[in-house]
């Protein structure tokens, strides 16, 4: 039973990590880490200034 719970936890954690990566939350957390800034409007604006070009260049398939 505990093995099942552990597996379910790992699965959920991976799913959440995937969603956080797809939705750029993880990228924002890394940005805050790297720049030693607390999360704020200014930090998010700075994050997007850095990220705008890379995000907009990301192709999405048909």
């Amino acid at each position, binding site marked *: 039973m505990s093995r099942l719970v552990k597996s379910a936890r790992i699965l959920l954690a991976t799913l959440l990590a995937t969603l956080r990566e797809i939705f750029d939350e993880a990228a924002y957390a890394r940005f805050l880490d790297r720049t030693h800034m607390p999360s704020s*409007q200014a930090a998010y604006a700075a994050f997007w200034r850095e990220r705008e070009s890379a995000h907009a260049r990301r192709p999405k398939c048909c």
Partner: protein
Amino acid sequence: MEMNKTLSVLVWIIVALLGAVAVGVVAIHRAEPINAMWLVVAATCCYALGYRFYSKFIAAKILALDALRATPAERLENGRDFLVTNKWVVFGHHFAAIAGPGPLVGPVLAAQFGYLPGTLWVLAGAVFAGCVQDFVILLFSVRRDGKSLTEMAKEEIGRVGGFVAYTAVIAILVILLAVAALIVVNALKDSPWGTFTIAMTIPIALLMGLYLRRIRPGKVLEVSVLGFILVLLAIWGGQWASQNPAMAHVFTLTAPTLAILIIVYGFAASALPVWLLLAPRDYLSTFVKLGTIGLLGIGIVALHPTLHMPALTRFIDGSGPVFAGKIFPFAFITIACGAISGFHSLISSGTTPKLIARETQTRMVGYGAMTAESAVAVMAIIAACVLQPGVYFAINSPAGIVGQTAAAATATISSWGFPVTAADMQALAHAVGEQTLFNRTGGAPAFAVGMAHIFSQSLGGATVMALWYHFAVMFEALFILTILDAGTRVARFMIQDALGHIYKPLGRTSWYPSILATSALIVAAWGYFLWQGVKDPLGGINSLWPLFGIANQLLATVALCVATTIIVKMHRARYAAVTLFPLTWLVAVTFTASWHKVLDPNPRIGFLAQARALAAGPSTGATARLIFNNRLDAAVTTVLVVMVALVLIESGRQWLGVLRGSKDARVKEAPFVMTQLAEERG
């Protein structure tokens, strides 16, 4: 240990036998309707066998994946583009990028041939071509510091390869965006409910952008859930809008009006800051996309519906109403993304190679994610084929083929052996909350009806069919508009990069005159083709979807040329058939399709024949424009084919040179560096 091995062999023998039986049933069964579960079982077994054996063979014998070799994510890690990432996270990221509307729309259109051709092509194409392309291009990009396909083509094949790859990408983007916009126009024309819902997604996306910027910075998942709830409210509100005479009047739009609105929207989305519209819409669309695909999969397995479409229809002879042309080559260019899509090679050489922690993970991400994409295409085939064939053809056939009135259309379709009545169609339109479902070409409305049919039988019954239908329309339109936003941006950046070589300020992505000029240029390009499609008496899809399919498969041809060249240079020529076989098939398909589209004497197929027929017929105000458009389509197709032929010749010269020893066989890989990662992450 020995016991485990025996058990494993036994399991794989059972999977192989089950797969063989399921494919056999799908292929041979003729007498009566077949259950969709046969397709599901056939697909599952084929993907499992392909992944377990074929991809492992490629990984071991050709690519020699090396778990000890540091990837660019490790060597160049910068916390931004290059980042060692959990393999499942990369898998999800890659799948979210490759899964677009293509695997949903293409199989629905190709269902006019019956369920069999599309199913066999999706299964064989994915296992032997699409998954292989995505896998090898991903690995080759990982070994070259995450370089793009155009850069690899330039380095490995030569300048011609690089130039053609670049031009093919721009051409594909332009045609893709036009086709995508046309599908939205056809799904929303004269549909106040759908138009209202989609219109509401724009303020919802703007609200999400502002919420993220001003209220809860960075809380994207939270705002996506909020956005999703608002979208559901917009679907519900759409019903009210369609029943309120004043609102219904405002939101009942003709195809040309919708086309103009989408062109204006495309320009705005390209020129506005990414955080304000593009990114929130992207988040919302991804959220809905992943959820809906999962839900549809569960719905199909739980309901295991019966397919009413026959295995093969009379239209394999090329006289199909949805699009003209014989099963070969047209089935193989109509279905791209679910079997093989050149566009995927851009993603395999884009963001994904910069996130891979180990070379060995490229198999799961490259090959594995494409099998998931292919499974989405199988779901689309099922959604289209659960409809009664008469209904399917009534929705997907243009008025120019079946007749302008309901009576004429049902009489024509019934005369083909697919009985349908005007009363059936009226009842169905009423059930999904539309005024009519006739002539809703483009594939999206038929898919939405099929999806609503499946969902309403699993959840809520017939009373909520209209809500499910508009949910499906919203899902597809949201999906497609995201492609419009992102595609217009990507093309704008590519044009700015190129123009920057001529005049430096034009290359600056923050210089507003350049932003406005290049946005206008790219929007004008796809807008022109969109307008052409809207004005086409045959519904536009007949001309534009094959053009898109040809362009997309020609890009896959370029990608496979690059892959084969690298394999030959790696002294693995004896295994080159792994990429050479799909390459040969694609050359046969695309070149034959191009020949037909340009030179076929049937005006419904050949662009030039149609131009001649128009010139010989009665002249109206639009005749001159239609003739010009057909000639332009013929010219675009010819230019693309000639360019790809040049890449083929150049690649062939490279292969022969290397095999004869007269050319340098050195590949342009980054030098080997031993990984410092203690153990495989994830």
